[in-house]
Structures are given as C-alpha cells and as structure tokens.
C-alpha cells in the first residue's frame, strides 16, 4: 500500500465527517438514528455550534430539516437508508418541490459488507428508489478521504438547490 493510501486508511473518517460539517457552518443536524449513527449523534449533541434534533420518523426529520433551512441555518439529515425509502412522498412534494438544499448523510445498510442480514432488502432497493424519485446521490469512495466528499455533496445540494444524499459505509460514520 502506498503511503498516501495508508494515511487515508488510518484516518478516523467519522471525525472527518464531523469536522467538515463544522467547518462548512452546519448549525443543525436532524436525525433518526441507527446502529452506525448512534455515537456520532452524541458527539454532535455536544458540539456548541450545532443543534441536534431527534425525530420520530425520517419523513418528519426531512420536514424539520426543511424548516430549519428555511429559517436560515445550514442543515444536514443523518438517517439510515430505510428512512430514505420511507420519506419518499415528503421528498418529492416538499424538499424537491420547494427546492430545499439539504445534505443527507445516509448509512447504507444491506450491502455485501453489512453483516446484518435483515438489511439486505433495503440495500437492494435503495439506489433504484433514489433514481426513481430523482434524488441525487453518490456512494462514498472508501479509498478517498471522506471530508472532501462530504463537502462536495454539501456544495452540490446548495448549488443545485436540492437534497443530495451521500451513501456511507460503516467505517465512514460509525464512531
């Protein structure tokens, strides 16, 4: 392995995600947790410049995020891909229809790397559904630093005035 790749592999990617959100001025995170997201949410909760809102359902979380962004605070949504599947109506009729720029950091469960078997149906459906509802997304490249990928996703959301989903693997987001 080259020196560069070794350095990247050693980086603590969840820390880079959080630091990037702080550097870009994200003042709020709205979330419904899963096993991968739980610990980074606790970190966010203790950040003095960030507000964490814990919602009961991902479609509700999406609407809360739209409201915070409407009020002028840069906002990220941290949810599992199950939540992206269940927030479809709100996504198309609120977030996309009103052109809310939202960064969505999504734990991508049910891929071959995910040892929890019952996530497989969601993993299989995720990308076809995202394409079907026209939600812009990309899957994180685990061989490249995570910080710039978060920044590019956030920039895309703002420049295109739409939600943008970054699909994350466990090592990207589980603290």
């Amino acid at each position, binding site marked *: 392995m080259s020196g560069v790749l070794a350095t990247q592999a050693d980086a603590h990617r969840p820390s880079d995600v959080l630091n990037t959100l702080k550097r870009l001025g994200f003042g*709020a995170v709205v979330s419904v947790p899963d096993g991968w997201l739980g610990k980074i949410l606790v970190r966010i909760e203790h950040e003095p410049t960030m507000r964490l809102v814990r*919602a009961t359902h991902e479609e*509700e979380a999406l609407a809360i995020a739209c409201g915070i962004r409407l009020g002028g*605070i840069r906002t990220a949504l941290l949810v599992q891909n199950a939540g992206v599947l269940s927030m479809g109506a709100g996504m198309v*009729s*609120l977030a996309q229809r009103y052109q809310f720029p939202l960064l969505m950091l999504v734990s991508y469960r049910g891929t071959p790397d995910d040892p929890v078997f019952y996530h497989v149906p969601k993993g299989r459906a995720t990308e076809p559904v995202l394409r079907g509802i026209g939600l812009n997304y990309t899957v994180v490249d685990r061989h490249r630093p995570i910080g710039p990928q978060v920044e590019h996703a956030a920039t895309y959301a703002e*420049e295109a005035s739409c939600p943008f989903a970054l699909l994350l693997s466990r090592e990207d987001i589980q603290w």
Partner: protein
Amino acid sequence: MVSAAITRPTRADYYRALADNLPPQALVVTSLGNASYLWAKLHEAPENFYFEDAMGLALPLALGLSIAQPSRPVIVVEGDGALLMHMGALVTVGAVNPANLTVLIIQNGVHAASGGQALTNAGLDLAQLARASGIASSENIEKPQALADKLRAGTARNGAECLVLATEPDLDVVRPPVALNPVVTKQRFQTAIGAPRYVHALFGGGKLEGG
C-alpha cells in the same frame, strides 16, 4: 318551531380571529388545501409559508422554523387528519418545546382537503394528546373569541402551545388570490425574514452569509 342547528365555527371564523390578533413579527405556516388557500385570501403576506401538498409535514417544518428563528413567533395551522398522519411530530414538538411555537389544529373530523372523507378517529381529545406528548399548554377551543383572547394575551410560556379548534368542515375549495408557487413562496419568505443566503465559492467551500 325550528330548532337552530348547533354548528361549530368555520375555518374562516378562526382565521379572522387569527388575522386580527396576529402577534408582531409572526411567521405563519399553513397546511395543504384550504388551510393555505383561505389564509392567502384573508392575510396574504411574504411571512406566510404555504404548503401545496406534503400532508402532515407542516407541523414538523414549523418546528424546524421555530428552532432557526427563536426570536419570532411561529404559528402553524395543521389539520386533524394531517396530525394523525404524522402524530410522531407532536412528540418531537413536545421534546424540543420551543416557546415561540403555537400549533393550531383545525379539528373538523374529516379529510377536508381531499373532499371530506372520514378520519380514522374523529373524536380524539387532541389537546389531551398534545399534553401527553409534552406540550403542557394545550387546550381545546370552541369559539373564535377564545382563540383571539389567547393570541391577544400573549402570555409568556416555557414551551410550545397547542390550541385545538373545533371547526365545521369546509369542503368547497377556496380560490387563493395569488398563484401559490412553491419556490416563490420559499424565496420571498426567506427574503422577508432576512435569512442568510448561500454564497458559493469556486470548487467548494461556500457558506451561508448575511441575515
């Protein structure tokens, strides 16, 4: 002898009370259908955020807005059907409990925006439900004057308020005075409140500035 039917006040009755007693600097979020159309007819303003569809999401959006704009009163008009669709949002409001948020629930017992279909349960005590969800200041209201008194009193609160308005269904679709274009609604709202805007930087690193 003709006995007068006892009817509940209309949405328009409550809306007139709201328009006449709107707190200074208030931001108003209205649910889909006549909740938005009638409010636009009676009190069109850039500080209104009209829902076009997205049933059940006016309340959580208003919660987010109240978090981002803590110094301004935020009033949301949600329907009982919409509330039942996303009842969890009531729990989240109770947990966050922003003192600048007033939740008005139009309890007309039907899905009015889609033609008056029956609700799953039209007889719930929604104020009790709101209290159980953590919104201590919750009350069932039966008269527009009671709503006016509540709004005028402007009593300082420690948390959110939920007022459930017993309302006669209004199934005739109101024609709004202006086209309610969603993106225009959003952009003029953000301009009206002076929300920070995104200033881009070449190759990333843009941030929200101003406001």
